[in-house]
């Protein structure tokens, strides 16, 4: 699994470097704005989409399935890579907010963003592993639309959490969220593995 993660980092090293440099520059210029704080989230999805598109464009899923690899390993490596870049992106965002003058990002806001992104990935990945990256078939378009709606709802929850509105007084909210997130992500991984094992080329 580690080799697959290293492979993704290796392939996207150029894109990552550009994003990090651009982000730092953007943050320095716009430190007073809240916008730069969201840039790592975009960065995560951009990098993930790039990794998936790269494999898909070159038709490499069947190629990797011909290597001595379990399909479950391939699925878990993709999840691990996504969570690693997500974590790295948010860490970068949090560190930047500490270094650059302005209102620093709270850890809670970082956590909420992480949770929102994790939910999104948990919804997206099973579809990806079942159908691939291309939204060509009609049923997939419908699923894609449903996914977008669901992602929007989760994003909204994440924003509410970020703002600390409504739920701020609930004790140990983060613990519940971690439990739910762990459950959803675990279910998503199992579903993705089952789907990917059934995938044919």
């Amino acid at each position: 699994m580690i080799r697959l993660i290293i492979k993704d980092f290796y392939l996207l090293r150029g894109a990552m470097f550009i994003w990090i440099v651009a982000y730092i520059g953007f943050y320095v210029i716009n430190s007073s704005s809240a916008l730069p704080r969201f840039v790592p989230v975009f960065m995560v999805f951009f990098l993930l989409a790039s990794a998936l598109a790269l494999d898909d464009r070159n038709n490499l899923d069947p190629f990797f399935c011909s290597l001595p690899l379990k399909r479950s390993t391939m699925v878990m490596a993709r999840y691990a890579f996504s969570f690693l870049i997500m974590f790295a992106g948010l860490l970068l965002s949090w560190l930047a907010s500490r270094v650059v003058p302005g209102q620093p990002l709270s850890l809670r806001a970082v956590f909420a963003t992480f949770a929102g992104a994790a939910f999104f990935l948990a919804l997206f990945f099973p579809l990806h592993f079942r159908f691939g990256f291309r939204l060509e078939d009609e049923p997939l378009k419908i699923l894609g639309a449903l996914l977008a709606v669901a992602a929007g709802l989760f994003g909204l929850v994440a924003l509410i959490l970020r703002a600390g509105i409504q739920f701020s007084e609930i004790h140990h909210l983060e613990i519940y969220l971690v439990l739910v997130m762990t459950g959803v992500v675990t279910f998503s991984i199992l579903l993705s593995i089952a789907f990917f094992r059934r995938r044919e080329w």
Partner: protein
Amino acid sequence: METILEVKSVGRSYPGFDLKDISFSLPRGFIMGLIGPNGAGKTTIIKLIMNLLRKNNGEIRVFGLDHIKNEVEIKSRIGFVYDTPTFYEHLNLLQMKAIIAPFYKTWDDGKFKSLLRNFDLPPRKKIKTLSRGMKMKFALALALSHEAELIIMDEPTSGLDPVFRRELLDILHGLIENEQKSVLFSTHITSDLDRVADFITFINRGELVFSDSKEQILESYGVIRAGKNKISMSGGLARHVRGYRESEFGIEILTNDLAASKDILIEGVVAERASLEDIIFLTGKGLKEK
């Protein structure tokens, strides 16, 4: 002889296509050509062996192991080459190798470099600039650098120019010299089989026509050529007829037992050994309409 690949009564259904009850086996140290017209089911069989498609029934054993239960072990001992090799096109050959090599415990870097030299492949050339023939050679270099015992290739020669094709076939022939490796490759070009195959498995419309040694096939199959109305396909001959074609000049009949067919022929009828092309072309022809 040790059997390296065994396919037993394997079937797979698609809408509009059925692969029915396919059985064959490949001994170690030999080359088997999987032949049939386009759409016959050759690629489906190869994908079933590689578990890229799921079979509906039957059993596939590679190195004596079940191909699904022991997938990782089996694939570490197989070199697989797609009909259109796919790689990260923006990388060069060494970068692509750096991605693939760590997945094989038996990877031999020295051998890979030597294969690149032998195949005239420039290591720092970007994959997107390679021709189809060069990509095929690169895929073969990757497949051979981890001491694969079984090389499986799907239509490796289609679309290659004659020079590359001959070169590739020579490489395949060279592989089995130490009698430790075996090769299974699909093709619809009969001259490829003439050149290198020891065994031939012929698939037509999803059904196995025969799977036997090339010598045995060329020995037993024959073509009977006669003028119109000179020959009747009833009686003794009918048992051996595997296909026939009528034209304005006469009739061509494919028989799977040339010796037996010769005995029942009348004067003026020519019976001779069939070429692989005759066999592929005439098999099943005319019988449906009969």
